[in-house]
């Protein structure tokens, strides 16, 4: 809500700069979205009077005006507005003026005729088109007759005001009004509220109840009041009222409608006015809509209704209750008799309806947040009295109450001890009482206890915690002490799984991989790829797009999306890892999926960049295997990892993929993404692995241990064998390790060759074996025996030839 500073000052004595006031409101009440100074940035815009008017010789719509702007000579201005008229006071942007949107006005020629300025419409000096009254929408604006020629125009049209745009939280609906704002400022600045007390001065002797009856569902409208004002004269509102509205962002329409909007700003109570003569019959009801009913709103939208909607109706809906009126019964220039409505509509029902039809109005916003249930009569009095003053209406004697809720102040007890206990303050009883009284809460002190009577205008306050907030904000958060909690000692540490996750990230980053965070919501298709186990999908019930409708069941597709994103931007070397959850459902009817931590890597292009003296190597299976090996070794699985070729992943290269096993447990897979899948993702050759981090966390890890370094020398031997190409390194290692004897410390493959001089179907594998006796110097003889045994067994197991 935009609060006018000028208007505020009518009710409270404030004399501080508006920015300071806004800062104070922000620190004490609600957020301030902005402070608006309507004339800011405008320059040389003055009151002018059109002295004469002649047609432009070369145009059928332009006029040449001589305009008195208070100088010795009139200014000649060419104007195209249809309503330009001799004698009128108008808004003149002089040469050198700056109007809305920072546009500068210069002398110019219009179709050959000199024009030394511009006559302005309201929107040209900064009022949005949607708040400019209809009569001024398509032409220049006429200032009041008493506007002084040559003066700045700002004060005549309310642009000298300053507006504080409040961003009101859901609990502070009371601040959506001048009334609420003033009461809060009164408490903050400790100044009295001088609110007026308007009463209907004269009634007509006619009765509302004679002219209309009502039938109200009090589930929909807790309170529902009507009063009729007869024989009104519909006119534009006086300028002061129009200014209040347009500065608040509301378009002035006519005196009766403007009164309802003005009172909504003043009290926060939305009202509606119906043209009594347009009602069908003389009974109105407040009820649920029926399926099939329709209404055309004031905004001229036709809305289809059903039983969940709430309406005011005669024999048809005439308003969406609390949201917007219908056009058929609206106040027009021909209206004679006005039926005012002042009600408390159910916040939830209003909210649901506004959301469903996407019609959010000033009224619905207020009903949703709640209104002052104790203030309706005052608002109705204001409306009727104003109708008399501004529209010569004859006010009926009575108000018809279709339903009425007797709103009572809430009494809340709180102790000084509790306040100081919660706030960490040392406030005195007098200080606290003073704060409550400044807020206008009647307060009785009974020992340590305050018995606080909260008026109905603060319907957000029910419990002692609410009162503590009032004390805190009025006392000032700035004035609270700053301490740290003192409790019995607690220790802070990561859970083992969290520690593993953090270590994993550090290790992979050390190995050259960059942490990516991708979207967990993905397409159905991608969610189901690279699966490590069978799982049902977890789907959103109302996804926004097909790209984000299913929870991922693998991390790989996210990384492939990332690689595609990079490739599309010409980044071809990508090495990413992701740590996050996948969502598995073992059976379809499970409520919630299991959320399993995974860690995954994808590399495309080269891990290292080519440099001037070193050519980069394209990633291959063995490079990414080296990474997963190092990673698993670092988290406690040294020498416990086994890779078993697996051709069955539909999304992986059948000849270049392996399951990763630890102690016989399947923990993940590694390999090259299937070329067809790579093509589908529009990416180059990519290697990936995906590991179930939850399993890694559960599996037993080798404790960090230390083995003393032997002082005895080791002996190293090489063995090269020619072997069938289908025999794997693992097969050979198994034999070597099994037969190598107690002193075999380490076996290292140092060459694999199957080119020239190697018969087809064979390959040459060369190993370096290291022997060491921890307790004695090893003799050649022992090593020779071990080597013989290894050789014999290799020959026995496989058809090999020692080279």
């Amino acid at each position, binding site marked *: 809500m935009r609060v006018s500073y000028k208007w505020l000052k009518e009710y409270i004595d404030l004399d501080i700069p508006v920015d300071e006031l806004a800062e104070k409101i922000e*620190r004490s009440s609600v957020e301030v979205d902005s402070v608006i100074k309507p004339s800011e940035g405008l320059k040389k815009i003055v009151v002018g009077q059109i002295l004469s008017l002649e047609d432009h010789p070369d145009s059928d719509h332009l006029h040449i005006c001589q305009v008195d702007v208070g100088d010795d000579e009139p200014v000649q201005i060419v104007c195209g507005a249809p309503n330009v008229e001799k004698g009128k006071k108008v808004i003149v942007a002089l040469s050198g003026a700056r109007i809305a949107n920072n546009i500068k006005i210069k002398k110019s020629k219009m179709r050959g005729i000199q024009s030394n300025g511009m006559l302005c419409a309201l929107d040209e000096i900064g009022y949005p088109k949607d708040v400019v009254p209809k009569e001024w929408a398509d032409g220049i604006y006429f200032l009041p007759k008493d506007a002084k020629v040559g003066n700045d125009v700002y004060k005549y049209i309310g642009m000298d005001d300053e507006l504080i745009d409040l961003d009101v939280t859901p609990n502070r609906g009371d601040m959506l009004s001048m009334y609420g704002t003033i009461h809060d400022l009164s408490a903050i600045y400790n100044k009295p509220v001088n609110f007026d007390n308007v009463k209907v001065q004269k009634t007509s002797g006619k009765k509302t109840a004679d002219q209309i009856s009502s039938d109200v569902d009090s589930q929909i409208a807790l309170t529902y009041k009507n009063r009729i004002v007869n024989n009104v004269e519909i006119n534009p509102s006086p300028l002061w009222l129009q200014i209040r509205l347009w500065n608040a962002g509301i378009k002035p329409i006519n005196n009766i409608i403007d009164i309802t909007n003005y009172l909504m700003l003043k009290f926060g109570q939305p009202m509606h006015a119906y043209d009594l003569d347009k009602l069908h019959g003389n009974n109105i009801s407040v009820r649920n809509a029926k399926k099939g009913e329709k209404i055309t709103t004031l905004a001229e939208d036709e809305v289809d209704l059903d039983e969940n909607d709430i309406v005011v109706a005669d024999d048809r809906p005439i308003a969406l209750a609390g949201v917007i009126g219908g056009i058929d019964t609206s106040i027009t220039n021909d209206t004679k008799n006005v039926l005012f409505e002042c009600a408390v509509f159910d916040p939830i029902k209003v909210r649901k309806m506004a*959301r469903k039809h996407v019609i959010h109005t000033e009224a619905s916003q207020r009903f949703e947040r709640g209104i002052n249930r104790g203030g309706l009569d005052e608002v109705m009095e204001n409306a009727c009295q104003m109708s008399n003053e501004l529209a010569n209406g004859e006010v009926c004697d009575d108000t018809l109450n279709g339903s009425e809720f007797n709103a009572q102040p809430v009494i809340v007890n709180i102790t000084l001890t509790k306040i100081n206990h919660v706030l960490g303050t040392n406030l005195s009883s007098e200080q606290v009482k003073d704060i409550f009284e400044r807020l206008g809460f009647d307060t009785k002190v009974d020992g340590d206890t305050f018995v606080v009577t909260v008026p109905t205008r603060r319907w957000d306050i029910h419990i002692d*915690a609410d009162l503590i907030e009032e004390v805190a904000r009025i006392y000032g*958060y700035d004035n609270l*002490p700053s301490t740290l909690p003192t409790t019995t000692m607690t220790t802070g540490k990561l859970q083992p799984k969290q520690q593993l996750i953090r270590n994993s990230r550090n290790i992979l980053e050390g190995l050259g991989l960059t942490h990516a*965070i991708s979207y967990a919501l993905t397409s159905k298709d991608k969610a189901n790829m690279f699966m490590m186990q069978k799982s049902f999908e977890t789907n959103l019930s109302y996804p926004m797009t097909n790209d984000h409708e299913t929870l991922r069941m693998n991390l790989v597709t996210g990384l492939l999306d990332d690689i595609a994103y990079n490739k599309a*931007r010409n980044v071809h070397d990508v090495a990413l890892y992701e740590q996050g959850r996948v969502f598995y459902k073992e059976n379809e009817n499970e*409520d919630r999926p299991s959320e399993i931590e995974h860690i995954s890597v994808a590399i495309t292009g080269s891990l290292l960049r080519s440099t001037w003296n070193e050519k980069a190597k394209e990633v291959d299976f063995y490079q990414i295997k080296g990474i997963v090996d190092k990673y698993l070794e670092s988290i406690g699985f040294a020498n416990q990892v086994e890779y078993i070729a697996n051709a069955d992943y539909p999304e992986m290269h059948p000849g270049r993929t392996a399951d990763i096993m630890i102690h016989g447990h399947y923990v993940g897979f590694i390999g090259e993404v299937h070329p067809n899948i790579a093509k589908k993702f529009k990416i180059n050759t990519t290697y990936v692995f995906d590991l179930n981090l939850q399993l890694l966390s559960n599996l037993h890890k080798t404790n960090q241990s230390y083995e003393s370094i032997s002082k005895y020398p080791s002996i190293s031997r090489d063995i090269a064998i020619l072997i069938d190409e289908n025999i794997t390194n693992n097969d050979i290692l198994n034999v070597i390790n099994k037969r190598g004897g107690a002193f075999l410390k380490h076996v290292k493959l140092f060459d694999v060759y199957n080119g020239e001089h190697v018969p087809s179907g064979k390959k040459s594998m060369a190993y370096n074996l290291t022997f060491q006796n921890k307790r004695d110097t090893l003799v050649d003889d022992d090593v020779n025996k071990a080597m013989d045994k290894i050789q014999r067994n290799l020959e026995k197991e496989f058809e090999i030839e020692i080279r």
Partner: protein
Amino acid sequence: MSLKDDLTKLRDDGLKNIENATNVKKMNDEIKVHLLGKKGLITKALRGIKDLPVEERPKVGSYSNKIRDDIQTALDKKQEELETIALNKKLASEKIDVTLPGDSVAKGHPHVIQSIIDEISDMFMGMGYEVLSGPEVEEDKYNFEMMNLPKNHPARDMQDTFYITKDILMRTQTSPMQARTLEKHDFSKGPLKMISPGVVYRRDTDDPTHSHQFHQVEGIVIDKHITMADLKGTLEYLLHQLFGDKYDIRLRPSYFPFTEPSVEADVTCFKCNGKGCEVCKHTGWIEVLGAGMVHPNVLKMAGVDAESYGGFAFGLGPDRFAMLKYGVDDIRDFYLNDVRFLSQFN
């Protein structure tokens, strides 16, 4: 000429030749061998000592030793000198362009949001908080109802939700971890002090300031005497650690259904230092987190005695922190994983 004179001349000539030598090998081969070798002149001369009278022998003997030492010293000195020259020449020829780039080394980068979460976690662990993580697929009960947001509460509109079923949703906030931990915590064993970082989801269209997936860190402290002053001190400590001491912090009243009183914390705008700019919408302040004293209803619904226990809770957004701290102007950058973006953070 006496033997002594011969020796003197040999020395003087030798020293002169050594002085003029330019090559170590040549010097050793020619001068050294010529004078001190087995058949060298000085060696030969020394053999003549035995022909001298007995009384002269010691004198001449010691003189000749001295001459031999002089020559050896000169040889050593010259050798070192020549070697130094040679080495310097070699080093000079080995000069490289030190401005050529170094070799490529594998180096990954942490994600900036993760770095901020880690920093916050470490800070709170240092103050004795547990770090807990909760489910991303959450029950309506924990995400909303137990956070004092019953069905149809208007504040539910503040958070557009991805529902999976009527009662199951993608959590819109990390706050459900307040309810979950409150429900489980055994207060007889001490206070509850925990933070919970994690991923949250909102039904928003992705644009520069909205992401359907982002992060939050929730924090809660509940004990018998936890005050709003403690909350203020904690938030000030956190924000000063994260953004630097030189920035001011202000607390403003706000509204969250699960705290009462509720506050939002602002930090002086980093970009303009509080003068007012586009980033802070000319207010000089940037909103960084929400907090408050845990609402008694939240405690009660979790089965905690709200008369005896109370405390504070806060929630903050690492994505927003990262955007503010590094001037990232599009939140989507955090989730698209452009290597050129990611590799700027260390």
